[in-house]
């Protein structure tokens, strides 16, 4: 029998497995024409670790935590900002006859 209160990590596991399937389905519809922007666009999405990075940078005033957090925010922001902007730049180049 399933327990009435699922532990959080099991909920997470459900979410993980199901979204891998969703992701694979959605992505398999993207034509080879756009595979480079697909790659850089999903790449930008992986910068969502920024959510963890801002907490890492801001949760305390200790030097160690601040330095690690600062570096994490820089890396995450480069990933997000650079990723979306370069994807946009590429997508704008695709024009019809």
């Amino acid at each position, binding site marked *: 029998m399933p327990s009435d209160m699922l532990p959080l*990590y099991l909920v*997470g596991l459900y*979410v993980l497995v199901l*979204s*891998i399937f*969703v*992701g694979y389905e959605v*992505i398999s519809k*993207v*034509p*080879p*024409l*756009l*595979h*480079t*922007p*697909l*790659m*850089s*666009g*999903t790449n*930008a*999405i*992986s*910068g*969502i*670790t920024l*959510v*963890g990075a*801002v*907490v*890492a*940078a*801001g*949760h*305390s*005033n200790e030097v*160690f935590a*601040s330095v*690690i*957090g600062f570096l*994490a*925010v820089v890396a*995450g*922001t*480069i*990933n*997000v900002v*650079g*990723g*979306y*902007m*370069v994807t946009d730049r*590429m997508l*704008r*180049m*695709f*024009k*019809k*006859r």
Partner: protein
Amino acid sequence: MYPYTLDLIYLVTSVMFIIGIKMLSTPAAATRGNYLSAIAMLVTVGVTLVTSQIVDWVTIWAGVAVGTAIGIVASRMVQMTAMPQMVALYNGFGGLASALVALSEYDRQHAALTPYLTSVILLSLIVGNVTFTGSVVAYAKLQELMPGRPMLFRGQHWINLILLLVTLGGGAYMTAYDPLVWNWFFALGAIALVLGVLVVIPIGGADMPVVIALLNSYSGIAVSFTGFVLNNNVLIIAGSLVGASGIFLTNAMCVAMNRSVWNVLFGGFGQTAPAGAGAAAGPGGDIGAVKAYTIEDAVNVFESAQSVIFVPGYGMAAAQAQHAVRDLADHLQQAGLNVRYAIHPVAGRMPGHMNVLLAEANVPYDLLCDMEQINDDFKNTDVAVVVGANDVVNPAANDDPGSPIYGMPILNVEQTRTVMVLKRSMNPGFAGIENALFLRDNTMMLFGDAKATLTKLAEALKHR
């Protein structure tokens, strides 16, 4: 704030990410899809900031400012030909961010470490670090800061296997017995950094599309693990989307090369030409003399042609010849010829690389054809112009069972009436294999820098 509001907003932004990717299915909607995804990102990070207990805003804004500045400059300056290494580098930053967040959480939640939390923190750290150094090596190879050929040494695979087992075994031990020991944590992180270097150095330049796709997927997996660390579903979802995208592209690239992902990762492909393979010009064919043709000869062929298919390869990117291709195509179109482009899935150094380059040169995307779309049309086409492509047009893939690329789907350029091959010299391609196409009777070799040859062709056509 109502306790579940944050999670409900995360649900909305997760859906926005999925729809954003879905909109990449057509070029017309793709730009808006990318905006949608970017807005989802902004909202997700924004609501996290306002709902977390932040005591140090300065560090956050400083980091955001530095990261934004670097991101803007890098994405504006990068040349389209250098896109593979740019994406490799962004992958690396994604992995690094995950690893640093793991480090920070290990510190922040030190007193509350459970075996579960320790294990997901370590997984996030290890996958993040492997992604980071692996991407840096891929970047260095693509940027030619280090040799692109596979770097192999004796016992390499055993060392990698042992390091992997040490990392996993050490992680399991630490989780079970010593979760609080910092030295364990740093040692595991360091081994993962070394592992990232070692797994990418044996892979050759021509296999980089697979590696970049795979590292893309790793960076997503690292994000998902971070999601488990932070108990945050939007990270788990976003991470799995990226992971799935990387897996899909890795698989697509491997199918396009008729090789397994294991063969790509451990094969050391392209280091040496296997003895005997490709030495003969296909079964029953003698090695004929390669005959060089002139611009005049080529122009004469164009004059009696009605249809042309351009076949770009990495050489086009290396010579920055995409604009010259477009120029020549314009002249041919003005002369009434039907011009199209055939794009092999693994042409170039990342999936879709050729499409981006030609789009940059203002080639309309409806003229860019996938292999399946166009492969049956070569036999009804007058001229195929091969610009810096080699292995993807090598007929040995069809008819030489001894060739290392035997079985790989290729573009059927040899079926066109005349094949023009623009090539710097007779050096074999990245797989190190001779190409019998160059010796066929219907092939015209035009030696020299691809860009210069294309420009001369366009000039000569103009003066007719």
